[in-house]
């Protein structure tokens, strides 16, 4: 046994797999324990060797960026080892995600709770941006919640570092409802502002308890955005008509946010509107957002331990959404996630409350 093999075997021995909790095209997720401490972890086993292109792109991205990021509001990659032909990622085990929290109608949100979740999201994202990493797939279901209530950004399967000047990036990223208009217009040169738009949509969703901009297709997504926020003019967003996939979609008037968010404070709406500014360069940055008066005003953000959480369910059906990034992909590269074959995936599961795992399973068979 050479030194590398030995090191790998030593690492592998630190973790004990317990139970399979999810499976997708590219990965199987197990619940596991650290042998020395008994700490709960999740092991994501990435299947290698059965695909001609080698390792799945999102797995490479995930390892590449999570290795660099260590922050209370970003999921922690504890270890990586290989077993036979598989690659194993050892991740922090997290109880639930923000989507499940939003959907659980038995939970009551206080304004302070929303403030707390938003602050944690912005803190995690600020750390990514400070490290020159774009997340590119923020949505409630990728914001995981630990048992102590702390929110952690997960699923870096679509993340990338900032592009060098003049290098193109794909516009087929970010789940549609959270995708900013510049990406919908096919823009290939963008920045941190794309993630801010997603956070704005999540912010609105926390207040409404339902997705804010649920478009049914990419074209309809733009219309949905314009119906809510008004069609942008050349003043609102200089140059947007020159973007590659620009099409005029008709004029929609701007409705004040106040009409929809009747209970929100003025500070709150001010921050929301700054996250949803059409011109990406004027959209608020994570640093400025964290210093926005909304966060300093009363009520103080709820202590994480007091945030509402769905009641614990039987362990076998426990959803671990870290698996999501790989499970959803059907082998067409990162673009797939933004254009899922089952376009109304979330709607399907929301119609049948509590049958989330069943909806997932249907998804898998489709890809096989």
């Amino acid at each position, binding site marked *: 046994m050479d030194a590398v093999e030995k090191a790998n075997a030593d690492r592998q021995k630190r973790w004990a797999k317990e139970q399979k909790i999810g499976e997708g095209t590219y990965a199987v997720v197990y619940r596991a324990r650290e042998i020395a401490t008994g700490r709960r972890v999740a092991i994501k086993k990435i299947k290698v060797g059965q695909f001609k292109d080698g390792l799945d792109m999102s797995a490479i991205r995930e390892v590449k960026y999570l290795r660099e990021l260590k922050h209370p509001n970003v999921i922690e990659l504890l270890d990586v080892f290989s077993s036979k032909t598989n690659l194993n990622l050892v991740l922090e085990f997290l109880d639930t995600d923000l989507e499940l929290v939003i959907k659980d109608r038995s939970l009551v949100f206080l304004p302070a709770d929303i*403030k707390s979740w938003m602050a944690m999201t912005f803190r995690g994202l600020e750390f990514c941006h400070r490290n020159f990493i774009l997340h590119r797939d923020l949505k409630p279901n990728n914001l995981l919640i630990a048992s102590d209530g702390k929110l952690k950004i997960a699923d870096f399967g679509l993340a990338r570092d900032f592009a060098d000047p003049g290098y193109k990036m794909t516009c087929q990223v970010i789940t549609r409802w959270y995708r900013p208009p510049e990406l919908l217009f096919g823009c*290939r040169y963008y920045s941190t502002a794309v993630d801010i738009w997603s956070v704005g949509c999540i912010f609105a969703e926390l207040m409404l308890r339902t997705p804010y901009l649920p478009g049914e297709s990419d074209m309809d997504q733009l219309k949905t955005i314009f119906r809510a926020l008004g069609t942008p003019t050349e003043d609102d967003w200089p*140059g947007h008509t020159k973007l590659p996939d620009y099409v005029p979609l008709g004029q929609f008037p701007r409705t004040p946010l106040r009409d929809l968010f009747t209970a929100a404070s003025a500070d709150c709406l001010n921050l929301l509107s700054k996250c949803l500014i059409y*011109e990406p360069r004027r959209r608020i940055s994570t640093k400025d957002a964290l210093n926005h008066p909304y966060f300093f005003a009363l009520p*103080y953000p709820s202590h994480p331990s007091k945030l509402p959480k769905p009641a614990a369910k039987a362990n076998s059906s426990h959803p671990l959404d870290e698996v999501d990034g790989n499970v959803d992909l059907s082998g067409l590269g990162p673009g797939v996630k933004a254009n899922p074959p089952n376009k109304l995936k979330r709607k399907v599961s929301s119609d049948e409350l509590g049958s989330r795992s069943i909806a997932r399973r249907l998804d898998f068979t489709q890809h096989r």
Partner: protein
Amino acid sequence: MVILSRHDHHRCESCIDRLFTLGPAPCPVCNKILRKLAFTPQTFEDLEVEKEVAVRRRIAKEFNKRMEDFPDLRSYNDYLEEVEDITFNLIHDIEIPETEARIAAYRRENAALIELNIQREEQYNRLLKEQEDAERQEREHRAAELRRLEEEEREEREKERQELIDKLETSDKDATRLVAKSRADALRRASARSTAAANSFQSSSKLLRSRAAQNTIVPDAPHVPLQDDWYAYEDMYILRDNYEDPASEAVRRDREGIMKAGGYRVEEAWERALRSAIAGLEIMPAEGIRTVGS
């Protein structure tokens, strides 16, 4: 009505009005200068009790330490004993100057804690009030909902009656059977309504109460924008507005305007290059490498 002054000489209300209308005046019994404000309405018939209540009220305001302020039960009990001693002395006029000195000393030593405990008390009261408000709102809400339901029910009954009459008029079925069927329907609907209403209310009020109870245990802290101590070398460089950078020239010129419209920022690339350059500055070169050519 009898009114009590702080130095135990009581007067009736009309006498006080007469004596003190022109501001401070000497007490007719002991000649001490008094103000009208020093007289408070008497609650208890027994003046001893009245005095004790006043003394205890005064003492409780400052001697407000709680059990959790002490390391063990023993010291807490000692403290309670001391408070009781002081109270006893004040009530029975024993060693008044010494006792007052003890109170003053205590006040000096524990000013911060006293203030903190006052705040704690206020916060607790505020929470109680909030909870009461929420419950009251809930009750009102429930009453409104009940009224609405009753109204609906009444309308429905009216409608059913009308339907039944219509049916009896037009249908050729047996009249008793039609009546029985409509009765059964009405009963079923009524029971469904009442269970639904009961469910929806109970849950939300219970939840609110449990959230309010939690608030007293873990306090919410004010917002702190950044909570990590990850060092990004920000103090080691200043990003300029512009750089001589041939590689990004086309991007900065942005003839079609698509860079600007898409939000791409050349500054972010510059900052990254700068930080990468600086991050390695403090790392010492590896030792033991021979310099080439020597």
